[in-house]
Every structure is written in structure tokens, then in C-alpha cells.
């Protein structure tokens, strides 16, 4: 077999890696071997947190709706609000309700009065 040097094959692969890890802190963006490890951890976290993001936002929306609904009446809370929502067969989801609570609070009060009846 003729002798073959490896040339720039590894360097091309590591340049892409360097670009990915360019914003990492300290040695994690400078040293090749640590960069490969940190890239793996970063991608794994991103994958896992894409699933978690859906849960996180739903929690946030529920908290926001709860806060606004508590101001609507004395013994009124998120759970009663949602129960009324389902009883009246409304289809609005928590994301929309949270946005309405932020931007157009009178509209949310209108909705809660409507379903309380």
C-alpha cells in the first residue's frame, strides 16, 4: 500500500465543530477534545429541553391565567374557570387565554362572566 497522509480531513471536521462551539465559555470553545464533548452535551440538552419547553410554557400560561382570574372575583380561581370553560364547551386553549389576559384583560373578564352564567 502506498503511504497516505491524512491531510486536512480531520481539520475540516473540527472547523465545523469550532463554529458550533464558538460561543461557549473558556476552554469549551478553544480545546478540540473538550469541544466535542460539550457539543454533545449541548445537543442533548437542546433535544431534551425542546420537549420540556412545551411543559414549561403551559405552566407559565396557567400561572398567568390564575393570577388574572383571581382578581375577577372573591372565590374564583383557575380551576373553577377551567371547569366552567369545559362545561360551556369552549375550545380556547391556555396559550390564547394567557395572551388575552396580558393584552386585552377586559376580554378575559367578559369570557369569565359569560361562562359563569
Amino acid at each position: 500500500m502506498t503511504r497516505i497522509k491524512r491531510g486536512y480531513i480531520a481539520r475540516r471536521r473540527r472547523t465545523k465543530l469550532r463554529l458550533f462551539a464558538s460561543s461557549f465559555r473558556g476552554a469549551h470553545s478553544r480545546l478540540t477534545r473538550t469541544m466535542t464533548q460539550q457539543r454533545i452535551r449541548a445537543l442533548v440538552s437542546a433535544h431534551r429541553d425542546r420537549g420540556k419547553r412545551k411543559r414549561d410554557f403551559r405552566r407559565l400560561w396557567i400561572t398567568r391565567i390564575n393570577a388574572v382570574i383571581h382578581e375577577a372575583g372573591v372565590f374564583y380561581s383557575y380551576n373553577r374557570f377551567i371547569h366552567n370553560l369545559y362545561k360551556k364547551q369552549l375550545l380556547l386553549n391556555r396559550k390564547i387565554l394567557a395572551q388575552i389576559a396580558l393584552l386585552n384583560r377586559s376580554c378575559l373578564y367578559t369570557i369569565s362572566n359569560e361562562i359563569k352564567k
Partner: protein
Amino acid sequence: MASSSATLSLCSAFSSHCNVASRRSSVILGSISKPSVNLVKPVIGFLSPSTASTSRPAFPVAPKFAESVVEAKPETTDVEAVVVSDVAEDKPKREEIFAVVMVGGRQYIVFPGRYLYTQRLKDANVDDQIVLNKVLLVGTKTHTYIGKPVVTNATVHAVVENQGLNDKVVVFKYKPKKKYRRNIGHRQPNTRIRITGITGYEEYPASPNVAV
């Protein structure tokens, strides 16, 4: 992002309008500058998982309905007003109305004149007029039409602008110490639609808005 460039273009249009408005001495036009500032607010994000990869920021922000938007008609007498009226008329045309519509399994708050990204609509071509039927809520300045579950006969008209793909997400599966790793890239197909109008809700029983 497209939305940020959209807000920037809005910004330039409104700033030119505001400069023009300050030249005129009418008090009414002075109040137009306030709502324009609100409309240019950076979009906060709670956009649905549709743009999960681009994160929430693409969601359009509603102008505050509590303030009154005074729509002043520009006078047509002055020569200067002829030039002014072209710019001034852009602003008052937009109706203060929003709807909550369900497309592709997700719900969106929708305003006429703005665009949004939905899941890919299979049989739609570019520049198709589209009618969205599942309208869950329509809100105007004074009344809210709450659908149980749908506002009957309400429709949202839209135009398909673009059929594209979301940004790439890298799906990287990895199990430590077990020599298992999979590297997969994914681009979710989407459709960009621009909302042209919201109609058909007038016959439905309306609830007047509660004063905050």
C-alpha cells in the same frame, strides 16, 4: 427574522407619518402617534409550537384596546395635504378587530394585515385565497363574540404567501457509555399566510366588553 423586518418597516412608515403629523396643528392627529408606538413594540413570544424552533418571538402583539384610536381624515384642501394624505391614510385603514382561529391543530390570535406561520397546508399554492372556518373568538373594541365552541358563520380570509420550511433543528440522540449516538436534522414544513379580513361574526350573540 421576517417578523422583525416587518416591524422595522412598520416603524419607518409610522415615523414618517408622525413627522408629517407634527407639522399639522390639529390636536386629533397628535393622538395617533401613541397607538403607532404601541404597534411597533417588539413581539413577545408565546407563539405556539408551530415555530418552536424559532422560539416564541414571531407572535404578533395586539394594540391595547383600552385606548381609543382616533381616526382622523386628512383634509384635502392643502397642496401639502395631498402628499400627506397618502401617508396618513395607511394608518386609519386597519380595523381594530382580532380573532382566535384554529389551524393545523393549533390556535392563533389573528389580526387583519399580519402574517403567521402554520403547519403546511397540503393542497395550497402560493397566492391562493384561503378561508379559515374554525373561529373560536372574535373581539372588537366594544364587543366580544365568544364561540361555543365556534362562532357560527364567522370566517377569516387569508392569502397563502409562501410554502417553506422551518429552521433546522438537530435531533441528537445519545446514550453515554453505550456507544449509541444518532445525529438527525429536521426541517418542519410550514406555510405562511397573510390575513386579509375577518367577517361573518355580526349575527352571533355578542357580549359587551367589561370595563377593566
